């Protein structure tokens, strides 16, 4: 019964996402495209960060490679950047596996720092390898649709749905349980015979791939990329973590909610209160980490229990 109801609500949501946008203004659809992109990125990060517990401060590597996958095809062979949708994630995974092989030997903060350093190294390398990447000038590519936003939106929606599907399948598979066991206690997992490094790589593959997919979407949608913007440490790597954190790490709907809030609320704040919006946003992030450390979804039961207790006590007093 409960299960059925959930599916019903989900189906309704899905239908809303499909049916409503054609009736919305282009600006709103644009914001929704960014929302879908951020949902995808948050889900991608969460597979490695939230489920497997390997906090990466360098996921812009995969986002940027995803963007450059299509960009390089366009730059060197003038192939439509839509092939980047395939090439970007593949490139991200190809680079992700050796990164994992090397860095997964490190634990906790050391892994986080190694990813941070790699992010910086790759950004500098892409800026300076002029012949391969066109350097700081970046890559401009042709856009397929101009004012027409809906095709981009539906592609973004499909990508986000794909990321949700992958996450769902992982969560309910043997891999999902292994990932969580690595997060909870790596030594215990190892003692139980789980080859932890191999399973971390298994987590890295969909994580890098999905993040790369979001990058490929960015490449096609924004249509110009620069190393400093797609490999951005703060604007990509760190904001991805904040998005997941706000929604709730390690769950299916946490990153979805976090990505949506991050891109949606942030744009609303920017459009309404202007230059102080980011301060408000940063303060919200601090408060959420302090008081709802598992994010909105993760800490919701606690908050609800707390509210219910309050209600009861005030009820008995009154």
């Amino acid at each position: 019964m409960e299960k059925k109801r959930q599916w019903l609500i989900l189906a309704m949501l899905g239908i809303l996402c499909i049916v409503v946008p054609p009736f919305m203004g282009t600006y709103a659809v644009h914001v929704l495209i960014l929302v879908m992109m951020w949902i995808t990125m948050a889900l991608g990060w969460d597979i490695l960060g939230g489920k497997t517990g390997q906090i990466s401060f360098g996921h812009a590597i995969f986002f940027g490679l995803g963007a450059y996958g299509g960009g390089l095809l366009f730059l060197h062979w003038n192939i439509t950047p839509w092939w980047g949708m395939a090439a970007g994630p593949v490139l991200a995974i190809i680079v992700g596996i050796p990164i994992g092989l090397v860095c997964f030997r490190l634990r906790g903060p050391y892994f986080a720092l190694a990813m941070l350093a790699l992010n910086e190294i790759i950004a500098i390398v892409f800026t300076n390898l002029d012949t391969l990447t066109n350097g700081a000038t970046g890559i401009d590519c042709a856009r397929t649709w101009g004012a027409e936003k809906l095709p981009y939106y539906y592609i973004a929606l499909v990508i986000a749905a794909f990321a949700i599907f992958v996450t769902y399948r992982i969560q309910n598979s043997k891999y999902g349980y292994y990932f969580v066991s690595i997060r909870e206690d790596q030594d215990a997992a190892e003692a139980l015979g789980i080859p932890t490094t191999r399973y971390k790589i298994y987590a890295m593959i969909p994580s890098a791939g999905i993040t790369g997919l979001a990058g490929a979407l960015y490449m096609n949608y924004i249509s110009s990329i620069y190393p400093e913007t797609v490999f951005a440490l703060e604007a990509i790597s760190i904001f991805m973590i904040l998005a997941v954190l706000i929604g709730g790490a390690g769950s299916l709907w946490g990153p979805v909610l976090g990505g949506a809030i991050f891109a949606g609320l942030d744009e609303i704040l920017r459009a309404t209160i202007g230059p102080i919006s980011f301060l408000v946003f940063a303060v919200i992030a601090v408060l959420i980490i302090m008081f709802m450390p598992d994010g909105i979804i993760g800490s919701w039961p606690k908050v609800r229990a707390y509210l219910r207790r309050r209600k009861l006590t005030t009820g008995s007093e009154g």
Partner: protein
Amino acid sequence: MALFGQTFITGVLMGGIYAIIAIGMTLVMGVMKIINLAHGALMMVGMYICLVLFEHAGLHPYVALIPTMIALFIIGYLLQKYSIGRVSGVETIIPESQVLLTLALGLAITEVIRVIFTSNYQIIHPALTGEYWHLAGMTIEIPYLIGFVIATIFVALLHFFLARTDLGQSVIATSQDKDAAVYMGINAERITNFTFGLGTALAAAGGVILMPLFYLYPHVWHPYLMKAFVITILGGMGSTVGALSGGLILGLAESFGSTYWGPQWGEVIGFIIFLLILLFLPGGLKRIIGR
């Protein structure tokens, strides 16, 4: 030869300044076992306090050093006590919630400063700025030299403090084994707050030293935070001597990299050293030099 000498001197002096910024981080990481991503932002706050003291009270940065450090000690202590410390020990889904909190705090602090001071570049010209010594075809910028001396003094004082005082020994005990320290009657929570304050004050000292040499704006801290990480890992967490030698190694690597490989690659060398140390010498130089 002058080129080599100049590159060497530049590297050593810069390394000393890196070291003092990193030493605050290495202390905090040693005791709390977390990476503190607000470290850079707090250094920047120190620089703004120094700026205000210079512009409104006319204090030379080297004089303003002490009040700035005291102010930042208090800020760091309170921040740890009422914000970061609260999250410690809370069971969360992902293990690093303190780290992520420092990250969000760093962003929030930067924005607060930006709202107060705008993103304009702030530039001060205290005495000695732009003064040089020339010897044998090489040049030494005097504020760099003074900065290096101050940094070395602080490293020495800190080393002495940790080795010879009860409070310092408590810090070391807490960093070596928190539970054991608690059994020995150390108030680990207070020691942690104290260490965070001390680390912050040292970061501020690093920032103040930069004031006569550099400029200031809210995002000034990004590269220094990176360098602090590199040095902390290079030197080993909690090691003062490690931080000093790590700073010197990084300063020299960047300097020689810029001269002989190309200025755009200078930073990459630092990061590569960092990765190599992480992978092949976990524990850093501390493992070699012993403390």
